[in-house]
């Protein structure tokens, strides 16, 4: 099995260890990982702001850079949601797009739905608070949404539950937005911060020791607030936990 790795901007610039953790997980599963260093942004920030003309060339680059890979995997729900749900508007009638969409997966989706991972060989003896990022939940359907009438499931939690000793926080609001929303955090700073603080308060009262998610962008927002509030909550991307990185 062969995978082309797509590393989101945040991870490339600010959290490179999440990219390394993703590679370690995939290589441990005997997957051949290729990193195309021509890759840049998926175009999400531009598209979210309505700058479709600026986003379209990035979508074309993505298509070109990953044309020869069997699968494309990214440790980010929102970048994958961009490819799967929003490239259609940017690349209308593109003959190669359906194949790209079908082979592009968020890391936890890929481990669950394609690789069918049975077990991990390490423990994680901590209480984990799982933040369900909006794009992963509502666009990629990586878990059940609280507003829908449907059976409960979560691909991220299902993977984490395979680690010995792990415990989960039961939150009052299980899938509320963290308030980041990309440029929303800049344009609506006050609302964005208060939404983040509300999430942190929920995790704090539920006893979260380690806060995790499939999106580093949500975690970056929450981590900034946690640090300023001097809360005793450690923040780790789910790839770091699944790769066996310690919480200390």
């Amino acid at each position: 099995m062969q995978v082309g790795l797509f590393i989101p901007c945040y991870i490339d610039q600010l959290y490179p260890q999440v990219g390394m953790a993703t590679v370690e997980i995939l290589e441990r599963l005997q997957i051949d990982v290729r990193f195309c260093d021509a890759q840049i942004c998926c175009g999400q920030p531009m598209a979210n702001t309505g700058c479709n003309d600026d986003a379209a060339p990035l979508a074309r680059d993505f298509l070109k850079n990953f044309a020869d890979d069997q699968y494309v995997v990214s440790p980010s729900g929102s970048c994958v949601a961009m490819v799967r749900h929003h490239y259609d508007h940017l690349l209308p009638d593109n003959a190669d797009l359906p194949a790209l969409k079908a082979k592009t997966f968020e890391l936890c989706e890929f481990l669950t739905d394609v690789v069918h991972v049975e077990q991990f060989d390490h423990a994680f003896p901590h209480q984990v608070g799982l933040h369900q990022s909006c794009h992963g939940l509502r666009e990629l359907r990586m878990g059940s949404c609280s507003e829908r009438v449907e059976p409960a499931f979560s691909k991220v939690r299902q993977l984490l539950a395979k680690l010995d000793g792990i415990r989960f926080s039961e939150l009052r609001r299980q899938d509320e937005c963290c308030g980041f929303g990309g440029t929303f955090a800049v344009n609506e700073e006050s609302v964005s911060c208060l939404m983040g603080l509300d999430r942190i308060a929920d995790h704090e009262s539920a006893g979260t020791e380690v806060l995790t998610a499939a999106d580093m962008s949500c975690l970056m927002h929450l981590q900034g607030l946690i640090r300023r509030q001097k809360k005793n909550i450690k923040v780790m991307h789910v790839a770091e936990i699944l790769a066996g990185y310690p919480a200390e």
Partner: protein
Amino acid sequence: MHAIEHAKEAKDFIESRGRAAWHDSALWFVRAKRDKAAQSLPEWETLRETASQIKQHTASRLADYLEQFEANATRLGATVHWAATADEHNRIVMEILQRHDAQEGCQKQIDAD
């Protein structure tokens, strides 16, 4: 009509953390009631999807449905007025009120709009 600077208004509102918390819990109370009602109907997602399609269909043919409404209402003895703007709507209503000598009683409602 004046444009609301949402980010600024929100910042002012949030200054009072007690008020923001009250607003949040009041809205969540509505959300929780909605979830409870939704969970009581196993066919909820089917109903929701059907309602969504009806809404999209109707919005896409709104002009046809409005004309159909006009034809039926006229046949039943009503007079249907068409207004392209809020101002035109208000002028028509005012004209009807004045024609029926109801000026004084209803003027306040229109002013308050």
